[in-house]
C-alpha cells in the first residue's frame, strides 16, 4: 500500500471518529440546553399560574395558555415536589402526538390543593437538533471529500519528487556514467534526500571508475616488465652453449610469461567492455563470421579429428566487430579445447539464436559458476576469464547467454535481442 493510501486511511478513520464523537457530544449538550430552556419556560408558566390564582382566586381558563396544554386536577396531597418529565404532546391543531415536556406542580386555590400539569411541545427544539445534526453530517461529508481529494492530488504532488528519486535509484548502474539529477522540491526532506542520493551515486561511480582505471593502469604497467622478460628470453636462447635442461626451464618461463600476458590482456578487455570503450558498432553477418572462424580453427578441428556440423542462416546483428570476433573465437576455442578426440561440434544459427554444442567431459558444468571470473574447470588450463568475457560482451549488447547440458553435449546458447 502506498504511503498516501496509508495516510488517507489513518486520517479518514481519525477524522470520522472525531466528528462522530463530537457530533454525539454536541447533540447531548444541545439537548441538555434545550431541555433546560424548556424547563425554565415551564417554571415561568407555573409561576404565572400561581400569580394568576393569587390575584383572581380562581383557576385560569384553558385559552389563557396559548399552545400549551394545562390541566388542573384536584388532589388531597398536601405536599408535592415540582417535577419535570417527558410526555407526548397532543397538538390541538394538528391532531397528532408530538414529543413534549411537562411540569407538574401543586398549587392552592382558595385553600384547595390542585395538581397543575403543563405540557409544552418540544417540536421546535427537536427541529433545531435535526437541523444541527444535518449540518454536522453535511460538514463531515464535505470534510471527508476534501480530505480524500487533498490527499490524492496535493499529497501525491508533494511526493512526486520522492518517486522521481526512487525511479532514478532503481535505474542506477555503477558502470553507467550518467549522473542522478537532483530534484527541485519545496520540501526540505526531499531536497536533502535528493542531494544525498546524488552525492552517494557520484561517489560510488567515481570509486568504481577509479577501480577500473586502476585495473587498466596496473595491467598496462605490467606490459613493459613482461616485454622485458619476453625479450630477455628471446636473447637468452641465442646462446647455444646452454644445456638442454636450461632450455627446458626457459620454455617453462616462456609459457608462464605468455600466460601472464594473456591474463593481462583478458583483464584489460574486460575493463574495456565494462567501460563500453569498444563502441564501434556496425552491422555484422554472423554466418560469415562463423564460417571465417571455422576456417581459422580448421587445423585444430582436424587435429582432434572432430566432426564439425553447421546449420546456419543469415543473421545480422549490430555490435562491435572486434567483440563479436572475441565471442565467436572463445566459443570455438572452448568447443575444441574441451572436446575429446573424434568428438563433435554442432553450430546452429536460427532466428535469433546461436548455439554451440560440443562433446567433451561427460559431467555437466556448474551453470551458476562458469561465467564467474577465474572459474576454471578441473582440466582447464586457460585464463579462467574466457567465459566471463563472453558474458560481459553479451550483457553489453543485451544478448542472453546460457549454458545447457543436453544428451552428453555441452551447449552454449546465445539469444540475440
Amino acid at each position, binding site marked *: 500500500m502506498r504511503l498516501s493510501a496509508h495516510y488517507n486511511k489513518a486520517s479518514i478513520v481519525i477524522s470520522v471518529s472525531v466528528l462522530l464523537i463530537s457530533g454525539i457530544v454536541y447533540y447531548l449538550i444541545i439537548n441538555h440546553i434545550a431541555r433546560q430552556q424548556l424547563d425554565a419556560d415551564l417554571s415561568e408558566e407555573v409561576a404565572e399560574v400561581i400569580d394568576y390564582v393569587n390575584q383572581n382566586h380562581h383557576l385560569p381558563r384553558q385559552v389563557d395558555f396559548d399552545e400549551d396544554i394545562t390541566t388542573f386536577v384536584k388532589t388531597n396531597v398536601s405536599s408535592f415536589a415540582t417535577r419535570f418529565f417527558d410526555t407526548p404532546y397532543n397538538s390541538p391543531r394538528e391532531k397528532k402526538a408530538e414529543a413534549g415536556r411537562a411540569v407538574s406542580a401543586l398549587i392552592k386555590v382558595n385553600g384547595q390543593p390542585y395538581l397543575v400539569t403543563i405540557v409544552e411541545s418540544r417540536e421546535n427544539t427537536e427541529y433545531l437538533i435535526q437541523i444541527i445534526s444535518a449540518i454536522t453530517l453535511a460538514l463531515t461529508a464535505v470534510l471527508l471529500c476534501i480530505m480524500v481529494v487533498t490527499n490524492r492530488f496535493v499529497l501525491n504532488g508533494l511526493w512526486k519528487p520522492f518517486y522521481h528519486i526512487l525511479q532514478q535509484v532503481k535505474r542506477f548502474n555503477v558502470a553507467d556514467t550518467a549522473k542522478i539529477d537532483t530534484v527541485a522540491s519545496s520540501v526540505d526532506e526531499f531536497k536533502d534526500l535528493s542531494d544525498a542520493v546524488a552525492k552517494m551515486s557520484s561517489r560510488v561511480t567515481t570509486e568504481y571508475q577509479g577501480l577500473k582505471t586502476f585495473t587498466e593502469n596496473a595491467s598496462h604497467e605490467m606490459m*613493459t616488465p*613482461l616485454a*622485458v622478460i*619476453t625479450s630477455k628470453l*628471446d636473447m637468452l636462447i641465442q646462446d647455444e652453449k646452454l644445456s*638442454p635442461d636450461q*632450455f*627446458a626451464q626457459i620454455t617453462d618461463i616462456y609459457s608462464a610469461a605468455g600466460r601472464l600476458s594473456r591474463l593481462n590482456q583478458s583483464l584489460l578487455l574486460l575493463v574495456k567492455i565494462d567501460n563500453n570503450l569498444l563502441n564501434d558498432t556496425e552491422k555484422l553477418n554472423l554466418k560469415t563470421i562463423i564460417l571465417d572462424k571455422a576456417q581459422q580453427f580448421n587445423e*585444430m578441428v582436424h587435429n582432434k579429428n572432430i566432426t564439425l556440423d553447421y546449420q546456419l542462416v543469415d543473421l545480422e546483428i549490430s555490435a562491435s566487430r572486434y567483440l563479436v570476433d572475441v565471442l565467436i573465437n572463445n566459443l570455438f576455442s572452448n568447443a575444441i579445447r574441451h572436446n575429446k578426440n573424434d568428438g563433435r561440434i554442432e553450430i546452429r544459427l536460427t532466428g535469433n539464436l546461436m548455439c554451440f554444442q560440443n562433446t567433451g567431459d561427460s559431467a555437466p558444468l556448474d551453470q551458476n559458476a562458469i561465467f564467474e571470473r577465474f572459474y576454471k574447470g578441473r582440466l582447464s588450463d586457460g585464463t579462467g576469464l574466457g567465459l566471463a568475457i563472453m558474458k560481459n560482451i553479451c550483457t553489453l549488447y543485451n544478448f542472453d547467454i546460457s549454458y545447457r547440458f543436453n544428451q552428453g553435449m555441452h551447449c552454449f546458447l546465445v539469444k540475440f535481442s
Partner: protein
Amino acid sequence: MKLLLIEDEQSLRETIEKYFTEEGSICETCSDRKTAIQKIAVYNYDCILLDIGLPDGDGFSILDYLKSTGRNECVLIISARNSLDDKIKGLNLGADDYITKPFHLAELKARLIAIFRRKSFDSNNTLIYNEIAIDLLGRTVTVNDKIMVLTRKEYDMLLYFIANKGKVVSKNAIAEHLWGDDMDMLDSFDFIYTHIKNLRKKLVELSGKDFFATIYGVGYKFA
C-alpha cells in the same frame, strides 16, 4: 639498415639493441623525446622504433615532427596500450605499423623488415635469400628457379624466418606470429612442428639443403 630505437625502459632498450645489431645493421638508441628529435634532426635513419610512452611527452609528437619535416623513415610504434584509438592515431600520423607489449624480438624484427621492404623496394619486389627467391607481390617462391608451392602459413613462416635469419626463434614466438595471441591454443606447438616439417621437406627437396636447425625443444634456427 640504420635504425633508431627510442625506448625509455633501459633493459628493453639494451636487449632490442643487441638483437638488432648485426652485420649490415646499426642500431642507435635514445631514451627520451628530446634526444630523439636531436638525433633525427641530424642523422638519417632507415627505420625508427618508437615507444609511445616516453617520460618527457608522448611519442606521437615525434611522429608530428617527422611528418612536418617531410621525412620518410619507416616508423614502428611500440606501445604498452593495446588501444585501437592509439593505433589509428599513430597510423594516421604516418607510422607504418604498431606492436603491443609484450612482444617477441623475432616478431618485432619481422614486422620492421616487412615495413622497411614495403617502403624501400618499390621497384623490385623480389626478396632473395641464398637460392630462395620470393616474389613479395605475387606471393610465389622459387628455389633454384623451381617453383615451390607453399600454403599460406608456410609462406608466412618462411618470410618470418628469413627476417630472423641466424637467430633462434622460440616456438612461442612462432605460434604468436602464425595465430595471433588471442588464439591461445596450447596444442599449437604441434601445428608448428607439422608446418616446419613440411616447409623443411619442401626446401630440402628443391635445394638439397636443410635450412632449419632444431634447438632443444625451445625453438628453431634458420640459416
